[in-house]
């Protein structure tokens, strides 16, 4: 199974960026690159070459789903797995995010001590058996 090491987080809220960085780096042991918008993510994703993109749904300008759509439209970025983060986690909303190509959804607000484990669980569900 491919190992999850590098995460590109796309989040416009500085307070969430700060706590998520601790949660993912210090708790989870991941390397984290941070982007503040969908547009910034699109411009940096190839250089960053993350194993996973963790993306807020509601962002000014290009929101999470629109950013994912643009990632999928470019053959060079189409394969990056994306997990959404959102407060909208009713089952039909989660289904919608998966239908548009999201790997899964992590609820906001999140517990900083368990965020990394939640990310890893979704990652492993997708990658078990893929070598």
């Amino acid at each position, binding site marked *: 199974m491919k190992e999850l090491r590098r995460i590109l987080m796309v989040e416009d*809220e500085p*307070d*969430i960026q*700060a*706590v998520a960085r*601790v949660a993912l*780096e*210090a*708790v*989870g*042991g991941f390397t984290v690159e941070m982007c503040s918008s969908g547009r910034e993510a699109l411009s940096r994703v190839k250089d960053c070459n993350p194993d996973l993109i963790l993306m807020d749904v*509601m962002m*000014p300008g290009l929101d999470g789903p629109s950013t994912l759509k643009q990632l999928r439209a470019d053959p060079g970025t189409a394969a990056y797995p994306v997990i959404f983060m959102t*407060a909208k986690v009713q089952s039909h909303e989660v289904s919608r995010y998966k239908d548009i190509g999201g790997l899964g959804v992590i609820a*906001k*607000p*999140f517990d*900083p*001590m368990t965020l*990394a*484990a939640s990310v890893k669980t979704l990652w492993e569900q997708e990658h078990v058996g893929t070598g």
Partner: protein
Amino acid sequence: MSEPADSVQNQLAKLKKKYAADLPQKVARVEEQVATFLSTAWSEEVCFATYRQIHSLAGSAGTYGFGELGTAARAGEHLIKRSLENKAPLGDRERGELAVVLSRMKELAAAAAA
């Protein structure tokens, strides 16, 4: 998983302390935005900006462990969302509810910062 738990806890505690100290200002900014929203002709742009601002505070407050403030902000978010979906200003009853929510948010923010 990576660093000793106390080190992580210290980092989170520092972030929480700073966030708590900033909360009154954050709520004041929400209050200003809501005042603009309520005092000007309804526009989708202003309504969405208000929705986004209170939505952000609802999410961050909960993540930083200020659940009651997050819940109050979420109640305000739902009121603004109704306006956004109806593409219409809030009615008198909803304005009253929003005033109560903001008042509660201010109380909770002040308590967190104290």
